[in-house]
C-alpha cells in the first residue's frame, strides 16, 4: 500500500468516526427540551462535510486498491464473510449516510429560525437512525480489516 493510499484510508476512517461522534452529540442535544439549534446546525453541517470527505477518500481507495489487492485476500482467508457480507453491506449502506446527514443539517438549520417540537423529535429520530447506520458501518469496517 502506498503512503497516499494509507493517507486515504486514515482520512476515511477518522473522518467517518468523527462524523458519527458529531451525530451522537447532536442527538444528545436534540433530546433536550430547548436545544441550542445554532450549535446543532453548525456541527450537523460539519458532519456532512466529514461524511463527504470520508465518502470521497473511500471511493478512491475502494476503486483503485481494495478490489484488486484486498478483496482477494479476504476471500481466500479464514473469514471470507468479511467481504461477502460485511464489506458488501458496508459499501452500500454507507451510500445512505451522506443523505441522512444532509437532511439532519437542513432540519437543524430550519429549526434555528422556526423552532418546532414535533420537528425536533423527528430530527432526533432521524439522527438516531443515522447514528445507528454509522455505528454499524464502523463496526463492519473493523470486521473487514480483521478479515485481511
Amino acid at each position: 500500500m502506498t503512503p497516499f493510499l494509507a493517507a486515504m484510508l486514515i482520512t476515511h476512517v477518522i473522518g467517518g468516526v468523527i462524523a458519527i461522534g458529531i451525530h451522537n452529540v447532536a442527538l444528545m442535544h436534540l433530546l433536550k427540551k430547548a436545544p441550542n439549534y445554532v450549535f446543532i446546525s453548525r456541527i450537523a453541517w460539519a458532519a456532512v462535510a466529514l461524511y463527504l470527505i470520508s465518502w470521497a477518500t473511500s471511493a478512491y481507495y475502494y476503486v483503485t486498491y481494495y478490489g484488486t489487492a484486498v478483496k482477494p485476500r479476504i476471500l481466500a482467508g479464514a473469514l471470507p464473510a468479511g467481504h461477502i457480507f460485511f464489506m458488501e453491506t458496508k459499501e452500500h449502506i454507507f451510500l445512505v449516510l451522506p443523505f441522512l446527514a444532509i437532511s439532519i443539517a437542513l432540519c437543524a438549520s430550519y429549526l434555528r429560525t422556526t423552532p418546532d417540537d414535533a420537528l425536533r423529535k423527528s430530527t432526533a429520530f432521524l439522527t438516531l437512525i443515522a447514528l445507528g447506520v454509522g455505528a454499524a458501518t464502523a463496526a463492519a469496517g473493523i470486521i473487514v480489516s480483521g478479515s485481511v
Partner: protein
Amino acid sequence: MTLIYEILIIMHIVGTALGVGAATFAEIHYTRFNSDDIITDDEKKTLALTYTVMRTGLFLLVISGFGLLLYLRLTEYTDLLTSATFLAKMTVIGILVGNALLLQARIMPLAIGAAVSLTSWYTALVLGSLRDTNASYFEILIYYAGAVVVVGGALRLIRAHFHGPKNI
C-alpha cells in the same frame, strides 16, 4: 510508526483515566449531593464539569482507538480485530454510548443507568488491560451483565447509607 503507536497508546490511556475517573467521581458526587434531596446550582455545575471530563475521555478513547486499529491494519497485524476480548470490549463501549443516550432521553432509570455506566467504564478498562483472555465473547458478556447487577446493588446500598431508603 513506533512513535505514532506510542502516542496513540498514551492518548488511549489518558482517555481511559479521564473516563473511568470521571465516571467514578460522577457517582461519588451525585451520591453526596443528593443525600439531602437538593442539588444546588453549584452542585449541578460540578456534575456538569465531571460529565464534560467523561465525554472528553470518551472522545480521546474513540479517536485513539480507531487510530490504533488503523495502525494494526497498516502493519498487517489484524488478529486482534477478531479476538473475543476485543469484540466484547467494543460491545461494552457500544452499550456505554447507548446507555448515555437512553439516560439523556429519560428512558433509562437513573439507578440502572448509573450501574451500567460505571460497570461499562471499568469493564472496558479491564478488558483493555487484559488484552486477551481464554473466555469466549459470550462468557465475557455474561460476566459483564453479572457485574452490572453487583455494582447496581452496591450503589443502592451506598446511597441508602447516605440517604433514607425511600429517597434512592
